[in-house]
């Protein structure tokens, strides 16, 4: 009998331990899920933290803070209207550290704010240059505080302005809108893969240098005055794209860090090239020009790039070999597909070399060339003796692009 009783008690106690009862229970109605977080340099304090939250109706006790369903228009009339946009509200607090800001946020809001579902972490360029970025991310990345899979955005201008301009698009919620937009941009490879925990680890000095998505308010000014753009369809920085839309925030290009400071901004086209070298390229369009006209080619990367660093010579030699596929409609009576392929290969080779030289001059290494050079060292001591930091600025690059052109459903060797 005693044994049966114990056999019953044992799993019951185990279940009791793992459930924890109501000890740490939080009612959904007492919480609110933050959608985005912005970090700027404060006016009176070091940090201004902006939190974007769904606007919850005053009678919304049943709705809880769980969803970001934009609801009612019961916002008091005396509040700063710029903080209320399209069913979402912004709350701003200032403090010397992120911990101060979080404490202030608790006093400013009637509900507990949860960051475990945030979509994006936005910070301004000036904030990144202030030297507070790393310690802020350290504070935010405490266990169970912030979603490690959130995307990191560097804003040209203020992060709070970007958050204010965020608009849910085509009838969806803002969270869904952001997700699908990010997915679309990644499918054409004009933005990098910049997950919060990866950016943090790279800022910490592990592996390649950190890269963030570039974000800016795109007010349609580029429609009137030509602000940027190069020879390629994606050769723009965020905020310079020639479009006008009800969703004025543009995400385009990338910010490359050197250590914990942003060192270089890459256009969408340069980001595509960087993604090619990282093997993250999904598809994209390039324009191959000759004397008469331009031809668009749709690129695909089906094979991982081959990167090696040769340390035998006086200066290191970085070899990058890419095997790509391109598809285009080619009228063989009017143009020579071989010539088109050769032009495309030459264009990509030249642009990739230029990009590598730009990264080298800025002292950035988002491609983890250091990791490839490290493969020559068997021990840490050998690696230290190689002095890669001193050797990298004088490294030479050899880029080889091999393109397989698929024209009119036929492969041209």
């Amino acid at each position, binding site marked *: 009998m005693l*044994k049966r009783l*114990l056999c019953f*008690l*044992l799993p019951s*106690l*185990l279940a*009791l*331990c*793992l459930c*924890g009862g109501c*000890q*740490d229970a939080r009612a959904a109605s007492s919480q609110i899920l933050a959608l985005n977080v912005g970090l700027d340099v404060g006016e009176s304090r070091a940090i201004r933290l902006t939190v974007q939250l769904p606007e919850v109706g005053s009678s919304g006790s049943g709705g809880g803070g769980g969803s970001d369903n934009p609801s009612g228009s019961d916002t008091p009339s005396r509040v700063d209207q710029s903080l209320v946009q399209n069913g979402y509200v912004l709350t701003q607090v200032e403090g010397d550290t992120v911990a101060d800001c979080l404490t202030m946020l608790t006093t400013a809001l009637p509900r507990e704010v949860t960051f475990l579902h945030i979509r994006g972490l936005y910070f301004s360029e000036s904030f990144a240059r202030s030297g507070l970025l790393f310690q802020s991310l350290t504070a935010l990345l405490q*266990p*169970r505080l912030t979603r*490690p*899979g959130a995307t990191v955005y560097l804003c040209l201008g203020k992060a709070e302005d970007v958050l204010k301009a965020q608009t849910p698009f085509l009838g969806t919620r803002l969270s869904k809108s952001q997700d699908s937009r990010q997915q679309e941009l990644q499918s054409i490879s004009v933005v990098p893969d910049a*997950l919060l*925990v*990866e950016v943090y*680890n790279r800022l*910490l*000095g*592990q*592996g390649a240098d950190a890269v963030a998505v570039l974000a800016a308010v795109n007010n349609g000014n580029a429609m009137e005055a030509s602000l940027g753009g190069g020879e390629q369809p994606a050769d723009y920085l965020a905020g310079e794209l020639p479009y006008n839309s009800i969703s004025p925030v543009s995400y385009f290009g990338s910010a490359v860090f050197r250590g914990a400071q942003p060192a270089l901004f890459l256009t969408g086209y340069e980001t595509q090239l960087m993604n090619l070298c990282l093997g993250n390229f999904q598809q994209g369009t390039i324009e191959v020009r000759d004397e008469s006209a331009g031809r668009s080619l749709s690129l695909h990367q089906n094979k991982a790039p081959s990167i090696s660093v040769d340390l035998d010579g006086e200066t290191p030699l970085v070899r990058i070999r890419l095997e790509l596929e391109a598809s285009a409609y080619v009228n063989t009576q009017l143009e020579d597909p071989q010539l088109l392929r050769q032009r495309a290969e030459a264009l990509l080779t030249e642009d990739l070399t230029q990009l590598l030289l730009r990264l080298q001059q800025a002292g950035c290494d988002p491609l*983890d060339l250091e*990791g*490839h050079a*490290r*493969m020559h*060292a*068997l*021990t*840490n*001591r*050998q*690696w230290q003796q190689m002095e890669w930091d001193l050797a990298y600025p004088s490294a030479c690059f050899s880029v080889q692009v091999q393109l397989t052109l698929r024209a009119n459903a036929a492969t041209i060797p």
Partner: protein
Amino acid sequence: MNNRIGEHELLVLLTGLFISQLLIPGSLAPVDYAANAAWVSVLLSMVLGLGFALISAWLLRGGDYFSACDLLGRASGLFSGLLGLLFLVLTAVCFRGLLDTLEAYILSLTPRALLAGLLLLCLLPGCFFGSAPISRMLSFYAPFASLLFLAVLLLALPHNAKLTNLFPLFGDGARRLAIDGSIGAVSYLWLFVLLIERRRCKRPLRTGLLSVALSALFLFVGYLSYSLLNAPGSPSETSAPLQQITTFSGYWRFFQRTQSVFVFAWAPLLLCASAAGLCYCGRCLGHAFGMEDPRPLFLPLGVVLLCLAAPSTERAPVWLRFVIEQKAWRALSLPPLLAPLIAWSLRQRKARRQTHA
């Protein structure tokens, strides 16, 4: 109560004890410092460890640990007592690991002392009934934990593994790794301590050797995956790669918060290992005090375990921090591991004398 242990149950119990870090802090700890090159040490310890395991199996032929200790005469109690104390400290470290894991991932707001007390109430009946029910419980969880581990690896490795993370291949030097690997291999000498169960199992030595191979394989795959997924200089600890890769590998792109799910497989493993550790502690101390039934010891041992495990590392008194962090108690592992060897040499000497006589 059926006290016999089936072969697969003993296999799961021994493998669980090897991989749950109950024994690892005592011997594989230098691997902590080798970071991304640790898998080389583990590979070496795997090869050497199988040799050590064969030696321990040969030393134990025809008897078990206590019968080997009995050959030491009056010192027998001392060796058993030291082993009991060692098991107590190892169990406390393992139990603290379980509490830390639950505190970090699932029950962050539950008071640690309450959690420790409730878990101890689960643990004590297991000790009271002996290691057979614990091994049965563990064999129930083992397939689930293994499948989950495999799923995490399959989700994490293909997209995140980087070959460059393995370099420099030999970390601080091949010599250092060889020393680490040799020290790590000693952990498999524990086989002859863990085969206290041998009289209750049909083919204990074969099962023991299989458990050594299986746990070495688990550890090797864990450390290698950890190295492939994390760039050199990673600040995260490498002492528990099976669990750590689920937390730091970035697999959450595919399977968010898997670490919380994995904890549900990892926590029972640690709980069973702690229960088995406390059970062995009681049996060793019982043997030292000449008690046939060690069960009366479990309640006071449980209280001691609670005192050792309940304070968090930040609030722990100085002596407890010394035990947890300095790991000076590793020296305690030497006499129990040497006991069967001394007993074997005494037996040989005695046999030679009889031959001469």
